[in-house]
């Protein structure tokens, strides 16, 4: 496994392939970045979804407001959450793919 650095430069890809100390660092960095991204998306999603039942529980007179003849609490559960999920999912997907792409550039794929 010895390499004197003269005949051939070791690329991050070789190191990853041989799971050397450096390779491990690269991989750990990717996993950590992906996890941080997932958790921040989760926090946004749980924050919004998790707050709604509590809000409806604590402020019962929201029910006296109606939107197009339908009580507001019902509208809040049935309408805005779904597009919100799509929006969070879409944003996450683009960022996660960008992280993968950056890793690919670093490691230097074929």
């Amino acid at each position, binding site marked *: 496994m010895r390499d004197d650095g003269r005949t051939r430069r070791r690329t991050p890809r070789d190191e990853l392939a041989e799971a050397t100390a450096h390779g491990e660092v690269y991989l750990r960095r990717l996993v950590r970045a992906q996890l941080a991204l997932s958790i921040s998306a*989760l926090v946004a999603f749980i924050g919004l979804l998790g707050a709604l*039942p509590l809000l*409806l529980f604590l402020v019962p007179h929201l029910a006296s407001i109606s939107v197009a003849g339908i009580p507001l609490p019902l509208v809040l559960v049935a309408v805005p959450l779904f597009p919100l999920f799509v929006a969070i999912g879409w944003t996450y997907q683009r960022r996660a793919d960008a992280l993968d792409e950056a890793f690919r550039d670093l490691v230097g794929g074929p």
Partner: protein
Amino acid sequence: MIAILAVVAVTAGTLGLGTWTVRFARTTSDLFVASRAVSPWWNAAAISGEYLSAASFLGIAGLVMKDGAVALWLPVGFTAGYLTLLLFVAAPLRRYGSYTISDFAEARLGSPRMRLLAAAIVLGITGFYLVPQLKGAGITLEQVTGAPYWLGVVVVGGIVSLNVALGGMRGITYVQAFQFWLKTFAIALPACVLLIYLGGLPNHNTLFGDGVPRAPAEGLSVTLDQPQQVVFPARSSYRAGGGVHQARKGERVTLPAGEVRLPPDAAVPVADGADTGRGVKWSRPVGSGGSDGPLFVYSLLIATVLGTMGLPHILVRFYTSPDGSTARRTTVRVLGLLWLFYLFPVVYAMLGRALAPALYVTGQTDSVVLRVPELAWPGEPGQLLSALVAAGAFAAFLSTASGLLVSISGTISYDLWSRVRRPRGTLDRRRRFRASAAVGMVLPVVLALGARGLDIGVLVGWAFAIAASTFCPMFLLGVWWRGLTAPGAAAGMTVGALLATGAIFAGLAIDAGGTLGSLLTQPAVISVPLAFATMIGVSLATREGRPDADAQLLALHAPEGLGLAQLERATVPAAEPDGPLPATRT
């Protein structure tokens, strides 16, 4: 009559198309390449098609009609589950390349025993999920043909079993994608047409105001198959068993079998278990406590948001994505497609509360989607619409039940049977898979025959609770944490499975109300954190036995296209004719 034809057409069409595509794919001999060329949109429709079961098609509307808007959290959770799946497991699992949950458990943790435990839990979850599909089939056939409930359950169980054994409709992306659009069309068109015909939602006072469901102006006639215990919400007279009777407000009465007549505008008595109340209460998504309080809502959300990633028949579908990034894009599209579908069940629930009060008397709110079209628009238009709905409901049972039975048969024949005695060649394996498809259907059919009185939505909620308490922690920790060990995963999954099933059976056995009752019927809020804690705790205590996590994490997280030796993905074989796929990790 039209409805019978529609149901037969959907059944024959689905089975025929499935069998035909399998033949077609085999003769072109490249099912695998074809499935890898599937675009994210097609694959998303296929995943949604397999996912949208009787619970979504019939169960949600039924539960909303019966329990009120609190049941609307169910479709929210069913959809949000895909968001957690997207954030934490979709791409890594695709990259890892194990086909089934049992494969993943064995490969990631390096322990063949994990496969057995995972297989046992897969059987539990799929069994719980299959029962409500059969129940849905039973009540739909009853509604459409007038055949007894048990006949529908047995016939559909037999058809699905035969279909899976003969290899039809298995992992066929295009058939499942077609099923999604059929179901969406079948639920959306009648809902829109009826809303236009009625000029909006009828009877706002019953839905959102002070009103309770009442008999229509010409009175209400209900035919009961068996004596039914009901509660009268207001003083009323009724005619039953040849005499006229009086009931006080709040009186509990056992109505005899046969015809029961209520005078015009009488508040309808409601079957035991239903708690409808006034419109203001019914339309409240979070109540003040007990079975509709915040604790119950959070527990339901935890089960559905975390349980989706543990559903065996859904996870397999992600491997038709060519790579991790496509798996992500596919999941985002699934979120959009489910949003589209879930716009509609609530419409049937509202129309049902306003127009189908007889279902409160019989307690069969699960069939509201099937009943509403003819009640809202009597005559031929209503019959046509209800035929369409019945066909869509059938598509829902067939696709989900087939997917579940494939998982069950694969688990029995591959994960369990092969461990006892190795199969002698492909032919033997195929025979075993067929035998498992027949045997695997027996217990769910028997359970479905006894589950007539349980709501479809509730039964499916239990399957999610078990999945969230077992496979969800295993996936989340296995994908993201180096420290997970086999004993830790085994202990956590066992604790989660025992707590969740124990609570559910205890809830069936004793009739506890209030906080305890809501925890027993939806235990996820307790069982999921405890499963996580056990898994982490035992893993830390057994640190020496930790598998080589670096190679594992490389396979889970490194993007494709690097050409690294470790990253060479095992070639994903086509859905084999004999079903269960061997562990594909190299």
